[in-house]
């Protein structure tokens, strides 16, 4: 789950890291009020979940509260990369002496979180790492033991930072590492971390991302502290009609599991795949043999006939779909006869001939004999586990190409 800047700042603040006094506003009037309270030059920043804010004009500077209100009004109407802002952040314009960078990310190979620090903040860290590797300090932290300040200190010192700067930055990086772990983050970044002219350190901008799997146990932070509603998942993926319908069919009945995706697919061959990890392999196999998949759908568990039928129907109703291939992997324990009933019924209900519409049925599963009988009766071509996933896919492709010729 990704956070807006104003939320990320709040998270940082809750962890005891200093931030400037900022205000989140949803109207120009609110922005004026916050700017008055701040009582000096301000920055007005669009709150959107996308990069490139600065370039798009989503960050503006103001000298007076009126100016702040004017900018807020404009920014609130400004769409950035297809995203409308949820508000603006009004922040005092900081007197910055130097900008630093601090973050914690996962290192999958080491299986540990990694602290990163640079004395060249404000810019893209990827670029710094490439051009000035000696200006990026790195250090893993334990997943079990408490994070010691000294560990953070080593990382910072590696970039050549010393003296009071080192002493002031150390607790900030250590706290960032602790909050990363405590809050199940997959990214916790402060950029820039600013040293102000008075020598104090503040987080001027922050990016946070929480692992989806952990959202359920971070309710205290999400709901209480940040006030994020349960249904606000920040998932900016817009499901297609097909994906929505399949999801609704799946939710309506607890038996079995069906899944349907068609993002990026627009072919003529619908796929219903027996879950068990075969979907990636089969999709490749169809494409590499010249076929054009229309979707990517799985069926597993012990679905009802209605569920299997519902899925097959959604696949067949997609624009451009001519045939459907049903392919189960060897480990599938789903009842073949039930799936066969569902898919055949889908054909019949849509006024199509199952023998012609079902390109191939690769059968492994439970109740195979009963499945064979049904498929035989309707004249549907099927094969067993001795036919590889590649060949099953190839037969489906040949069928659809033969039909087109």
């Amino acid at each position, binding site marked *: 789950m990704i956070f807006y800047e104003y939320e990320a700042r709040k998270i940082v603040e809750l962890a005891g890291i200093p931030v400037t006094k900022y205000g989140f506003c949803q109207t120009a009037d609110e922005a004026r009020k916050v700017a008055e309270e701040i009582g000096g030059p301000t920055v007005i920043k669009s709150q959107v979940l996308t990069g490139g804010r600065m370039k798009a004009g989503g960050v503006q500077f103001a000298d007076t509260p009126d100016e702040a209100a004017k900018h807020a009004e404009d920014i609130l109407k400004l769409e950035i990369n297809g995203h409308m802002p949820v508000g603006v952040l009004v922040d005092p314009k900081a007197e910055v002496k130097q900008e630093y960078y601090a973050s914690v990310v996962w290192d999958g190979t080491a299986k540990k*979180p990694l602290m990163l620090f640079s004395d060249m903040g404000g810019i893209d860290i*990827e670029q710094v790492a490439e051009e000035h590797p000696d200006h990026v300090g790195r250090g893993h932290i334990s997943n079990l033991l408490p994070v010691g300040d000294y560990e953070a200190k080593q990382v910072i010192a590696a970039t050549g930072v010393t003296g009071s700067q080192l002493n002031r930055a150390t607790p900030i990086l250590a706290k960032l590492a602790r909050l990363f772990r405590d809050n199940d983050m997959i990214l916790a970044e402060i950029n820039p971390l600013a040293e102000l002219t008075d020598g104090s350190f503040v987080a001027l901008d922050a990016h946070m991302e929480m692992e989806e*799997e952990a959202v359920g146990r971070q309710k205290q932070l999400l709901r209480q502290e940040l006030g994020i509603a349960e249904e606000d998942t920040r998932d900016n993926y817009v499901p297609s009609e097909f994906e929505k319908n399949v999801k609704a069919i799946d939710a309506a009945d607890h038996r079995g599991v069906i899944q349907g995706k068609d993002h990026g697919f627009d072919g003529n061959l619908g796929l219903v795949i027996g879950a*068990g*990890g075969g979907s990636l392999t089969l999709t*490749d196999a169809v494409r590499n043999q010249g076929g054009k998949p229309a979707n990517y759908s799985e069926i597993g568990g012990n679905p009802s006939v209605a569920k299997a039928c519902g899925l097959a129907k959604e696949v067949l109703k997609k624009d451009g779909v001519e045939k459907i291939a049903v392919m189960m992997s*060897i480990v599938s324990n789903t009842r073949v006869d039930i799936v066969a009933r569902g898919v055949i019924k889908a054909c019949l209900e849509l006024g199509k001939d199952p023998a012609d519409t079902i390109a191939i049925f690769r059968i492994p599963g439970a109740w195979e004999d009963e499945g064979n009988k049904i498929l035989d009766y309707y004249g549907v071509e099927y094969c067993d586990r001795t036919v590889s996933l590649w060949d099953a896919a190839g037969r489906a492709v040949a069928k659809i190409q033969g039909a087109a010729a």
Partner: protein
Amino acid sequence: MENHGGPIDGSIVTVPPGFTKDAVIEAIANGIKLLVIVTERIPRGDVAGMVEFADLHDARIIGPNCLGLIVPEVCKMGGIGGPAKDAAKSYKPGVVGVMSRSGGMTTEISSSLTAAGLGVSTAVSIGGDAIIGSTYAELMPYFEADEQTQAIVIYTEPGGRMEAQLAEWKQENNSRLPIVAFMAGKFMDDDEMQGMSFGHAGTIVEGKEDSAKEKIVRLEAADIKVVERIDEIPEAVKERIAK
């Protein structure tokens, strides 16, 4: 404990994600050395914590989000291959070690090796998550030490750096074992399939995430044969063993 024929030395963990870490630590603290975690959707921090604890106690974790492992006709931990009766059909003792990020495909591939008369020495469903207890490279020394094993087959998917790690291991260790790899999900390289990209900070840690194509290049550079079709695996293994 006394009701068991011998000492307990393995544990299969299937408890819900919220309780997995505690269950695993309990098992390890009580001397269990091999754990198979079947549970999925465990937050990374928990997985990494369990792995760190296991390392401190010389224990090994397989998974999470996996189906376990099988030594045909000797033992089976986890749901791999389905009920024992079905698993026996797909898995016959033989010379190939199998490691797979997909539980189901472990069996699909093993079944084809069995049908081709090669059989399987040990097959491990290693799990599909971002952080897992045992990666390909981390399991290689066990296969290397196993006399029965003459070749390795891996099934891999887009995402992560595990293949790169295996390629490095192979180059550094002068392994006696030929490796054949099958890469699924090549279609995900396509532009229209690109979904979310990862944050900048993440990419500087592990290098840019390999696309399927890049992974294949990397594997082949380490003399790991990458087959195009899943049904080419048995032949490729035979060729490599004969070499």
